[in-house]
């Protein structure tokens, strides 16, 4: 294994290391903030003791000035500290996200074992959640500081009282935390039910035209109502649990306050506490529960960050699918592409030759075998998974550097993927190409309607995945894109399935003109007679084997099975 072992722990440690400057400064400031928060009740006690109870004006002014200073420190420490911590999370999430995308788009492919949907959620939410480890660090440190400051303040006032509060509060919080797993479970199922309801609504409305087409809107509405009622039940269960927890917290905090107030009042009555100290103790007893709860929250947050980091690590640490060589671009030979005795996923000892200047048709009776051939030619199959050799200009494809291989062989898929952006950007696929070249390719792909129907021409904007084009238009733009790229070997897989008969005929003729001359090779993997008609030769694959080869017309005349498979 060439890739270093990447685990969730590695991802988390790396996050802290990368953001160490922000994290360190953020922690210092957040600790300061929590310490000053803890001192607010003490300050109130001091004002009451020194000024309100005595009526001393100068003491009042002095203590109010002290209070102002306290608030100033508190506010600015929070502002700067929280910003630093937040920035650390955001920068880390961004960096991780970009790394994930780069890894997912690795030209060699990666064996993360995740589908697109999963990968998407890893880039969207797991990148963010794993970065939260930075926030956990800040919050934990700040909460501990608050507890220490409050503890010291309490112990200074009265040692037994301080010890009682210090032991009592964590015990109570821990006891209340025992409900946490139940709360989490309930609110997780609540969120799941609500997300399912939302997803159902989106799904049904997205398919609204389909539903309307068969008059199924009422059934759909009833199905949604069922899901909505289920979500309501689950939500109410969660709300009841939350209410119970809230009520319990209120009661427990109140009982604790009663105990502290009673004891501190008794101490004050004994003259061991001033009135201000009484106020401060009561205030601190209430305050200290907050940082303790924060610690509990941090534990949950850390568990979440670790789980997400595990998924991030799965993507970043995934091994490449193929191990390409490092040979440079091969010199052109009379046979641009050759398969020698290739066996893979249903293909059995298949040999093919694509000559320079030739258009080769491949008709696989089983669509799965056509897919297997496409995967092989696209270089998506690791060496170990197939037998035989794929040669590009005489050089075994797996010895070529990935860029060299891709520079020679281009596979345009059946389900064309277009991207948001201008028509020009889509056609040129990132290269800088003359409009004349684009126009010629669009014409060859019989896609002039896409261009002509729009006032902006090549600057026409395509929406996400070319959704504002019809299926047939997308296919033809995909074909035009491949013709613009003008690769030495072009592989087209069922390029006209969404295109009407008239247009397909036109396209076939023009495609023959565009690719038939020169030294390039073209492979048309298709069952369309209109396309097979323009090929020089057709190789027929049945049950994984090449069963017959020859010009389309001859096969049509001599082979009954061939005729049946290609007749539309």
């Amino acid at each position: 294994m060439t890739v270093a072992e990447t685990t969730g722990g590695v991802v988390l440690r790396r996050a802290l290391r990368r953001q160490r400057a922000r994290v360190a400064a953020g922690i210092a400031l957040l600790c300061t903030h929590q310490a000053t928060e803890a001192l607010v009740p003490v300050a109130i006690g001091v004002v009451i003791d020194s000024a309100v109870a005595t009526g001393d004006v100068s003491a009042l002014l002095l203590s109010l000035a002290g209070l102002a200073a306290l608030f100033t420190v508190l506010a600015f420490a929070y502002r700067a500290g929280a910003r630093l911590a937040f920035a650390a999370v955001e920068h880390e999430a961004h960096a991780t996200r970009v790394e994930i995308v780069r890894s997912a788009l690795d030209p060699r492919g990666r064996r993360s074992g995740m589908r697109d949907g999963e990968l998407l959620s890893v880039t969207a939410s797991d990148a963010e959640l794993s970065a939260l480890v930075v926030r956990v660090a800040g919050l934990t440190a700040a909460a501990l500081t608050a507890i220490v400051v409050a503890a010291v303040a309490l112990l200074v006032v009265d040692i037994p009282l301080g010890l009682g509060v210090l032991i009592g509060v964590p015990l109570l919080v821990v006891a209340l935390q025992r409900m946490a797993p139940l709360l989490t479970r309930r609110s997780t199922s609540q969120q799941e039910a609500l997300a399912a309801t939302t997803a159902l609504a989106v799904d049904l409305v997205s398919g609204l035209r389909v539903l309307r087409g068969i008059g199924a809107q009422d059934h759909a509405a009833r199905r949604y109502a069922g899901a909505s009622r289920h979500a309501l039940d689950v939500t109410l269960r969660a709300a009841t649990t939350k209410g119970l927890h809230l009520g319990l917290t209120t009661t427990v905090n109140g009982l604790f306050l009663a105990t502290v107030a009673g004891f501190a009042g008794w101490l004050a009555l004994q003259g061991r506490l001033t009135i201000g100290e009484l106020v401060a103790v009561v205030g601190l007893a209430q305050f200290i529960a907050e940082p303790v709860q924060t610690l509990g929250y941090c534990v949950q947050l850390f568990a979440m960050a670790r789980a997400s980091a595990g998924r991030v690590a799965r993507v970043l640490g995934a091994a490449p699918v193929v191990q390409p060589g490092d040979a440079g671009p091969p010199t052109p030979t009379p046979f641009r592409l050759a398969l020698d005795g290739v066996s893979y996923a249903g293909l059995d000892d298949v040999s093919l030759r694509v000559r320079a200047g030739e258009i080769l048709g491949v008709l696989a009776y089983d669509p799965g075998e056509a897919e297997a051939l496409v995967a092989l030619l696209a270089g998506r199959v690791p060496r170990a998974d197939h037998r035989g050799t794929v040669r590009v200009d005489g050089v075994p494809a797996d010895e070529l550097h990935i860029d060299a291989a891709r520079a020679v062989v281009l596979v345009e898929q059946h389900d064309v993927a277009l991207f948001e952006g201008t028509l020009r950007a889509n056609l040129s696929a990132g290269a800088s190409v003359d409009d004349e070249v684009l126009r010629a390719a669009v014409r060859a792909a019989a896609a002039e309607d896409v261009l002509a129907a729009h006032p902006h021409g090549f600057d026409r904007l395509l929406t996400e995945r070319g959704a504002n084009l019809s299926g047939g238009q997308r296919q033809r733009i995909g074909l035009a894109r491949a013709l613009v790229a003008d690769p030495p070997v072009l592989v087209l897989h069922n390029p006209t399935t969404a295109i009407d008969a008239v247009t397909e005929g036109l396209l076939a003729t023009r495609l023959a003109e565009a690719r038939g001359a020169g030294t390039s090779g073209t492979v048309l993997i298709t069952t369309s007679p209109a396309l097979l008609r323009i090929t020089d030769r057709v190789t027929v694959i049945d049950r994984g084997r090449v069963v017959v080869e020859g010009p389309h017309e001859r096969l049509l005349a001599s082979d009954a099975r061939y005729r049946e498979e290609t007749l539309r």
Partner: protein
Amino acid sequence: MTSEPTTRQLLPTATGRQTWAALRGELALLPRLSAVAGTLLIAAAATGLVAPWVLGRLVDDVIAGTDTPRVIAWAAVIAGAAVLAGLLTAVGAAVAARLGETVLARLRERVLDRALHLPSATLERAGTGDLVARAGDDVAVVTNVIATSGPAFLGALLSVVLTAAGLFALDWRLGIAGLVAAPAYAVALRWYLKRSVPYYARERVATGERAQATAEALRGAATVRAYRMEDAHVARIAERSGVARDLSLEIFGLYTRFGLRINRSEFVGLAAVLLAGFLLVRGDLATVGAATTAALYFHRLFNPIGLLLFESDSVLQAGASLARLVGVTTLPDTAAPAGSEPNRHDRGAPAALEVTVRQHRYDDGPVVLRDIALRLAPGERVALVGASGAGKSTLAGIIAGIIAPTDGAATLRGVPLTQLDEHRLRREIALISQEVHVFAGPLGDDLRLADPDATDAEIAAALDLVGATEWVRTLPDGLATAVGEGGRQLTSAQAQQLALARLILADPAVAILDEATAEAGSAGARDLDRAAVAATEGRTTLIVAHRLSQAATADRIVVLDQGRVAEHGTHAELLRAGGGYSKLWRSWSMPDPVVPRERESTDQPVPR
């Protein structure tokens, strides 16, 4: 999203007044629950005031030098209030949730019901984008705010109001001192909302664009790799992610500046209360205990006020979403009146359909159809053939009753389609278009959308008729296998087989297939054509044909050219006529030996 110049904003949004009225109306439907919830919440907040008040009295008593039992009594009062407050809080939260969540569930169900029954004309104009956003995002926003922030927000609000009242009850002068903070808070809030709301909208857009770029690149990964565009896509995603990140940072900066202003307000209020307490105690107008209670009251307010202020923007967002939801509920209701469903056993009786279009155009656009008169006899299968843009889909839409012709009419069994209610129409005339959608969830559920009462046997029969039995059998859980978004991805041919199976289960009298088998991989094309024939057997059928083999098997063929009927007749008649159709057919079904291929000389090219 805005690349096409048409405005999509066609669904109504309710005004603030309408939204409130709708909410009040909903609450009025549950009068007892509303009253109980309100009482409990107020009582819970009120019991929360006991402790600070008792602490103030305790301070006074300690100063006066009271005895131990009195201190214990005060502590017992705090304890009693705590138990009561806990009880009221727990029950109040549960009851309030029942009220709020029930109202919300009813609202979302009504929104989806109206969305699903959007009149065809509105749907064709508005598209599904905005509708999806409302049924999805807006419902989710309102639901989440009510479920997560709702109880806390309400509790905080009551807490603030009652504490302020308590402050006044204690001593009106201390109450006024506390109110000194109110303008400071108000200014801070106004400052924040003015900036944050537009910011959040921008952040949502930026996050959406980032997600979109990522999804596109990952889904199209094979193409990205084939064209060596990885760097460009990574750069684009990095750029968008950077924009979203910077916006988040700016928003957080705003948030912390808001926090600063809140801290300032807290100090102003606290200092004012302490100062007032000082003056009152000095003037012998209040006790030290009262001053202490006031300071504690005010300190107690920090958290709820902060919560109210920081949550205010999400509450505002929920309000905006709510207005959009209430807007959807004001749409006319085209849902089935009870009992209008055709009897299950009467469905599918063949019917004659006639259409006359003297002319049709979209808005002020060019004329797309003219001089068309067409009659489909009961059970007849007619194929519509023509190049892209010949007007096939428009004619299919008119016949399906989805598009009203500018000048002309369509009738079913002699009744104009415009006189049939939408629901009845859709049960009689089914339209299967190129737009395939596999509904997420178990495969059986997808099919039962067409007929919820279908038995497993009926479903199996429908699947068999469209030739899907074989691949359905290979699914891990058969009909229970999750398909569609988040489930097993079906090929487009399989998805179209499902569409045809739904058609069989819906069992309409008339079936219109608008290129319903077009996207299939070619190998499956013939199977799909067979499936389409099987699914429409015995129905009056119009097929917009992509492949001429579909046309060849039809009873009659209509060839459209630039909006007019160029030819019509049976396959054999049209071939004999020797017009455009016969040429097309010949170029399709057999190699054309007459036209010599231009590139035969390149058989033995010289390699460079």
